[in-house]
């Protein structure tokens, strides 16, 4: 019998629906993998095997009763610990929220449970989703299941959705939620050889998702292939009156619309993404991607996105500015950590609580954000950054007059070793250089695995689409997936 944990979303769902195996069997198999890998990979902050089993039981009962099954029925998934889950600790991987158990369920997670999915547990991440390597979690690093041959060095699973990427790559979950503020779905997907899509800003409700940078945060799907991403995103997306920035539009049938045929489509190659010092392997996989899309029938042209070089500095003004304000609510007054030294007044309590509750990277971004918003600096930084953000959006709009999708590498390198960049925030921030522009413009974008580098580590390609054209993005991703034939998986060492 096949190992159930080698299957993806569609295969599990269809297997359960067809009676090949029961949802309980599926949940038990993944629960076992989660438990077995926890010490080595640290992908989960909290495992919830009972939740996975309960959902599976419901699915099996519905099937037995002949009731209709949801599009994710029988599929256990991992939930990034940025989504509030009723009755289950929700921490954003921070000490300040350690022990916080919400009474409410985020809209996105609720939609997934409504679609029949079950929860394997809450996935580790960079603290408050701030990081590109999963080294900022209060609950310890997530270790990538991938290794360089002949090396025992622990590799980064990417970030901030590093628990999600590691869990999927290591077969602890067939799919997981991610959130993407500047690349937090796409970069970890690329680092671990899986697929991940960030939809258009506003497609998925932010209600119940711990906020990092409100104008950029967007939930998305991470899974082993494009089809699974489409199925899951379809279940997650949709208008939510509780989120003012949510798009009041129907969710297209992305799964039914999948097509790897790129005939009549034009793919743009932004020349500004050929950055200095880019490893030749990244360049090579990009060229390979171009060839695959041409092979799928696409016309490929070079385009210019002239303000690309300003995207990273713009992002590192806007995101920290919003974060500095969004994280003000963690003050020790109503929930979460409270550090109240003897004789402390209110100000002392704030200072002590926040000093103890936030990690170094979170503090760094709060400091940056507070600085760029302060009197005398606001116009020079924040106002200027907003103007550049508009210019970056206009670059994309202009390119999309000419092309249907853009193809770029997802990250400027394969996974790096843990500790390699941790003392150099700028080097760490550069990891987001290809993913940040689409975030600033609110565009749908995905990463698909394209091949391995010389060390046997996965490399991803990024497809960026027009606003609301997730279908175009998914289809280009599918065209690459079909041709890349990516089947590599980490050798089990845990």
């Amino acid at each position: 019998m096949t190992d159930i944990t080698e299957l993806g979303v569609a295969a599990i769902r269809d297997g359960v629906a067809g009676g090949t195996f029961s949802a309980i069997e599926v949940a038990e198999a993944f629960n076992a993998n989660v438990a077995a890998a926890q010490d080595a990979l640290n992908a989960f902050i909290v495992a919830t095997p009972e939740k996975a089993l309960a959902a599976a039981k419901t699915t099996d009962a519905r099937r037995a009763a002949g009731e209709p099954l949801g599009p994710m029925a029988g599929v256990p998934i991992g939930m990034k610990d940025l989504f509030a889950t009723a009755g289950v600790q929700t921490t954003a991987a921070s000490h300040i929220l350690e022990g916080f158990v919400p009474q409410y369920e985020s809209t996105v997670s609720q939609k997934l449970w409504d679609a029949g999915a079950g929860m394997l547990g809450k996935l580790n991440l960079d603290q408050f989703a701030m990081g590109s390597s999963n080294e900022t979690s209060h609950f310890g690093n997530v270790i990538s299941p991938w290794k360089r041959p002949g090396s025992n060095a622990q590799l980064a699973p990417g970030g901030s959705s590093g628990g999600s990427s590691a869990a999927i790559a290591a077969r602890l979950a067939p799919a997981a939620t991610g959130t993407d503020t500047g690349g937090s779905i796409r970069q970890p997907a690329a680092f671990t050889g899986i697929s991940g899509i960030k939809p258009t800003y506003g497609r998925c409700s932010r209600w119940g998702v711990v906020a990092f940078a409100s104008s950029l945060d967007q939930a998305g799907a991470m899974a082993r292939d494009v089809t699974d991403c489409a199925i899951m995103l379809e279940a997650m997306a949709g208008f939510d009156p509780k989120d003012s920035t949510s798009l009041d539009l129907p969710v297209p049938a992305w799964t039914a619309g999948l097509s790897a045929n790129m005939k009549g489509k034009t793919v743009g190659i932004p020349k500004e993404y050929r950055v200095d010092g880019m490893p030749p392997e990244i360049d090579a996989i990009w060229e390979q991607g171009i060839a695959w899309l041409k092979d799928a029938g696409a016309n490929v042209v070079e385009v210019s996105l002239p303000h690309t070089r300003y995207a990273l500095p713009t992002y590192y003004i806007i995101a920290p500015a919003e974060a500095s304000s969004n994280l003000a609510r963690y003050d020790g007054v109503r929930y979460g950590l409270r550090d109240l030294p003897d004789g402390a007044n209110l100000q002392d309590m704030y200072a002590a609580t926040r000093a103890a509750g936030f990690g170094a990277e979170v503090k760094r971004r709060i400091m940056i954000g507070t600085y760029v918003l302060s009197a005398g600096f606001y116009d020079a930084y924040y106002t200027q950054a907003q103007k550049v953000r508009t210019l970056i959006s206009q670059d994309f709009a202009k390119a999309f007059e000419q092309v249907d999708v853009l193809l770029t590498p997802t990250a400027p390198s394969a996974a790096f070793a843990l500790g390699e960049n941790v003392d150099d925030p700028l080097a760490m921030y550069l990891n987001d250089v290809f993913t940040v522009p689409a975030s600033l413009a609110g565009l749908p974008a995905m990463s698909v695995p394209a091949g391995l580098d010389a060390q046997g580590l996965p490399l991803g390609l990024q497809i960026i689409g027009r606003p609301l054209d997730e279908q175009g993005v998914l289809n280009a991703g599918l065209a690459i997936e079909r041709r890349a034939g990516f089947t590599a998986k980490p050798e089990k060492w845990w």
Partner: protein
Amino acid sequence: MSAHRIQGATGDWEVVIGLEVHAQVTSNSKLFSGSATAFGAEPNTQVSLVDAAMPGMLPVPNRECIRQAVRTGMAIDAQINTWSRFDRKNYFYADLPQGYQISQLYHPLVGEGSLTIDADEKAGIPADKVIGIERIHVEQDAGKLMHDQHPTMSYVDLNRSGVALMEIVSRPDMASPAEAGAYLAKLRSILRYVGSCDGNMDQGSMRADVNVSVRRAGEELGTRTETKNVNSVRFVMQAIEHEASRQVDVLESGGKIVQETRLFDPTTGSTRSMRSKEDAHDYRYFPDPDLLPLVLDDAFLADCRASLPELPDAKRARYVGELGLSTYNAAVLTADVETARWFEALLEQAASAQNKQPADVAKQAANWLISEFFGALNKLGKGLENSPVSHAQAAELLALIGKGTISGSIAKQVLEIMLDTGDSPAAIVEREGLKQESDTGAIEARVDEILAANADKVAQYRDGKVALFGFFVGQTMKAMQGKANPQVVNEILKAKLG
């Protein structure tokens, strides 16, 4: 025209005053959440996940609050900005769960407008004066700290957290405590007419930050101070009085005014320093990324405009022009919307009871309301809102007077009994036998008796002591137990005395 001046030791000073009024928007739920807004609820019973700023919670604008603010803007003839935006004002305090207040700094909902304060010679306002209003923006209220619940700790009540406020910012156009008082009273009147704020200053639904500076006549503006959260018209006037004299004292003794925030102490009527500009927060205002810009369409604006009631100035002009009321009476009846409503209901019912046009009974109704009814209610410690006499009953009483069934003086007796028992005036008149006698025969008989009994006075009258006419009237009325129709008595007496 004599402007308000403070006489200092070294000469005269002018006062310059601007008010920032915080008015709680009348709506069932808060600005960005569905929580209730009722006053006086148990602590923390009207708090949603959004109001408590739980992780991942998001604000959703309440359309009714926006509508009320727009209607208010229209009532002061202000520019309505069809594109406005919410900003975050960041600071830490225990009554502010989000760590920021959602407000509107850069693009307020309502722009430039104005209101007119009325001339009041006695108060030192010689002529009507237009006071500029710079803007109205909407923002969230904070919660409330309770320091009296525990010996060492403070408690937080979040019921008010997130309640919608309008901040109405005047121009520094007021030059005396009286003008500031009149502005606040007029603004309160307009808000109550519009129905966008209940104006209950003692419950905190309306409070003012008072900006005061002084200067020598014609000189540049002086440095101002801001006295926070003053919650009555009288206190605002006291705060200005005190603050202006204090500033003059400081300046005349060679000191400088420090730009600072001050507190008003109602028990002493004085202000004291709270914090200086150096300690002021850097609020790090920036557009709230959780909210889209607020865009108003024509249909929404048209609906807001159509729902506006007749406003106090227009109503007063109509009372004078169409109903023929005196300016004074019209001002009294229109100052508060509840009084005007009561008067108009009374007028309509009084007219229909007498088969007349409202304009034909308006003077009678207005005079009765102001000179009889208000005083009688006042004696009972009541107002129109809890009057034991309904406007229907009052209209009935006016109709009894109008038709000559009872006289004005009997009407006073009837009103006393109405206030006491709540009975209808007709029933009282019937029961107490107070019906006015208009029967000429009965009156004539009494007049004849009186003239016969007072032959000496009749002679004196006929000799030219016409002032005695009143004596005969009095005697007749007395004999008739006050129930004779005074007009008929007059006529008969005149005829008989020749």
